């Protein structure tokens, strides 16, 4: 069986009722995992893997999804992350980093995660001004938006799991 991060993060084991239900929508499960794989492909053009994992960690943290954040923190620790950048993403803010790419990426992650409606042309144009190419801007935007999707799928499945346990205990 291929690795499926959503199943891992929600603790869905093969053969369980909710796992079977989720995989009735197998195309969705495959494209969700495929999105994760493409967004964190080490060979992706324009952003380093460390930059992408920092953005993912920060976006999860801002959204209050501690357990999904823990996954990205673990991956950062596995590849050997810059301590100051990791601290900004994990417990600080972008402004504590020097002006540059990572600070600009985290600032954009905060805008998209917390107040997507406030986005404007100036916020987007701050990225090329920080030396980030257009393909990297696309990768960054897709990544932040994917995290907003991923953590809601995890939260929704967890709630379904709890509701299922509740029903079983009432039965």
């Amino acid at each position: 069986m291929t690795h499926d991060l959503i199943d891992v993060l929600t603790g869905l084991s093969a053969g369980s009722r909710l796992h079977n239900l989720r995989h009735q929508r197998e195309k969705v499960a495959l494209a969700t995992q495929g999105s994760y794989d493409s967004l964190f492909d080490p060979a992706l053009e324009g952003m380093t893997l460390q930059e992408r994992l920092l953005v993912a960690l920060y976006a999860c943290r801002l959204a209050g999804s501690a357990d999904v954040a823990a996954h990205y923190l673990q991956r950062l620790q596995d590849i050997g992350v810059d301590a100051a950048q990791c601290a900004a993403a994990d417990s600080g803010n972008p402004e504590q980093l020097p002006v540059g790419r990572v600070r600009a990426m985290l600032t954009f992650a905060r805008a998209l995660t917390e107040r997507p409606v406030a986005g404007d042309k100036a916020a987007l144009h701050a990225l090329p001004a920080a030396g980030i190419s257009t393909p990297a801007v696309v990768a960054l935007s897709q990544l932040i938006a994917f995290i907003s999707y991923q953590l809601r799928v995890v939260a929704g499945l967890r709630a379904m799991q709890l509701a299922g346990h509740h029903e079983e205990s009432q039965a």
Partner: protein
Amino acid sequence: MSTIIASHGFTNASLEWEAWLDVIDLEQASADQITVLEESNPKAKTSDYYLFLAHQPAILRQRSAAFNAIMYAPGGMSRAERELGSLVVSRINGCVYCASVHAQRFEQLAKRNDVVRQVFEDPYSAGTNAREQAIAQFSIALTKAPNDISAASIVALKEVGLNELEILDLMHSVAIFAWANRLMLNLGEPVLPLTD
């Protein structure tokens, strides 16, 4: 479109969308970029949105596969109800462009727009019956505070008759618009077609 509704800055009229950075040039595009555009949406080759996202074709391929599977797969929750969930999310996130597109899709599928008018007016009280109200409430809750979604949130959907596959479909429809709205709101802007 039978009736144009305009309320609180939202509309069911057709809108265009323009990117704030350079889109790919179809003349210079790789074969893979062209293929991904064709897989994504019938109008992708003339859409700034898809032409911008095509800078990263591998990511766009997976995003489009997820989006199309969530919104169009047969069975489970009706397509109109998935559109209702997406419409509510777009209204809450303030995505005028997405709200316009999915208001129109809802009306095409459901042959009515009463609940569209309600969602534009006040999403918190929207729904022409208990089932629609519960769909709207869940869509708002998962959008605004995903980590507060609980077993009770799921039970509320079951109480108005949703089965588990329908709940899964609704959850996916809401989550994919957390993704779509953020791109549409931050990479460009809706443009009104020329009118008198």
